[in-house]
């Protein structure tokens, strides 16, 4: 009974690694434009999406995140010229590899949001939250602290 109730009120925890120059500014714009989006996402600001070590994603999943979102500048618009391009290669392999191991593909999501796309940022967060809610709580690779 208590379990069912917990299930009913379950809200996903989503960790978002966002780049300082585009997506973080996009999130800021969504905020100052007072666009509503689900509060399930925790933003971690990084200099660039290229700064995201694949281990951050794995570690977040292990530490109990139900989903991980990585977002940076659109290709060709990176503040560091090509940081997001090298990130794209890393993530292509990481996502494919984690899916191969059996972790649901929707747990790790990669996208691009620019600084002017406040509405798109809110839309992405809505979409991601929806996807993770459909999957339910993460069970694989999660560390238990009991």
């Amino acid at each position, binding site marked *: 009974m208590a379990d069912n109730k917990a299930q009913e009120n379950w809200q996903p925890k989503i960790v978002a690694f966002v780049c300082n120059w585009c997506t973080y500014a996009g999130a800021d714009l969504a905020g100052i434009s007072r666009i509503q989006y689900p509060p399930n996402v925790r933003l971690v600001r990084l200099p660039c999406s290229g700064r995201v070590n694949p281990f951050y994603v794995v570690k977040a999943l292990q530490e109990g995140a139900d989903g991980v979102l990585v977002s940076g500048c659109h290709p060709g618009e990176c503040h560091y010229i090509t940081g997001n391009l090298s990130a794209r290669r890393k993530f292509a392999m990481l996502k494919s590899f984690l899916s191969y191991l*059996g972790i649901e593909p929707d747990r790790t999501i990669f*996208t691009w949001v620019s600084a002017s796309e406040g509405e798109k940022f809110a839309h992405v967060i809505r979409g991601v939250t929806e996807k993770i809610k459909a999957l339910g709580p993460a069970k694989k690779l999660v*560390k238990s602290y009991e």
Partner: protein
Amino acid sequence: MSIEKRLQEKAVELLSEKKVDVVVGYEAGTLPYQAAPCFIENPDDEGRLVLNPFCSVNLAKYVHDILMAHKASQKRMKPEQRTKKVVGVVARGCTTRSLVIHLQERQYERDQIFIIGVPCRGYVSKKKLAAAAGGKEITACAIINDRLSFTTPDGTKEIPLESVLAESCLSCRYNNPVISDVMVGDPAPPMKPDSEYADVDAFEAMSGEERWNYFAEEMKKCIRCYACRNTCPSCYCKVCFVEQSQPRWVGVSVDESDTQAFQIMRLFHMAGRCVDCGSCVDVCPMGVDLRKFLKKLDKDGYNLFAHRAGEKMEQQPPLSVHSMDDKDEFIYEP
């Protein structure tokens, strides 16, 4: 003249002409079905060198170790007293590919290594051999052409050599050196590279739950001895992430997820860098099926970026370069 004899002569020639300071090769191990790495510095020791299907370990690891130790020792020297060390290495196809990766990653210069290329027809998997012997102690072992005979307390048995070759050798694409300074022996006939991804394809056809259960079961075997990391030529970080403590990356508790996270990250570090030499599988004391996961990275590297690790000097590792036209179907666009 046997290839072993020619190899020994070559080693003597290189050492006495002072072309190399040390030759890294294989010597007979302490067990009849083993070969151990050996380091020949004196031309008189050349008789120790052997070359047979029991030579399993990838020697590129030792080349890297020697050259890094030498580099560290030179730091304390005055510039005019510094010396150059040249390492000769007996290299099969997979070893040369590992050397190419080291060179691409600027670990040492091309003139610091002298590659004695040898053809390879696969090495014997100790686990398959132990299974063939039914777990009994093998007291003698010999290879004649394509047959392997071994003696256990139950008697002598003869089996086809191919039945005990390592999985990575059976579907090897590069059983002849991709680069070499000198080639000893004639090129070996090709193996069966067309079936190299058969294992991965079969695994991909399973459901996500089944795949995860398989992975979790395999990882339960892992005792985190780090033998796979220690033997891997591509694992050469000065401080490995598993030993970093500030911050501590991977927990060391008995929780299964710690081992899983360790393995996921070690495997992922091999993206575009694994040459499928099978050393990690060979040394694993628990028989974890690492190859199934490593081969997937190899397959992705080829499918996404048309790259095979260590194939060509000119081709940069897939995660070191990028292009505007890279595939991006996986990017989420709501």
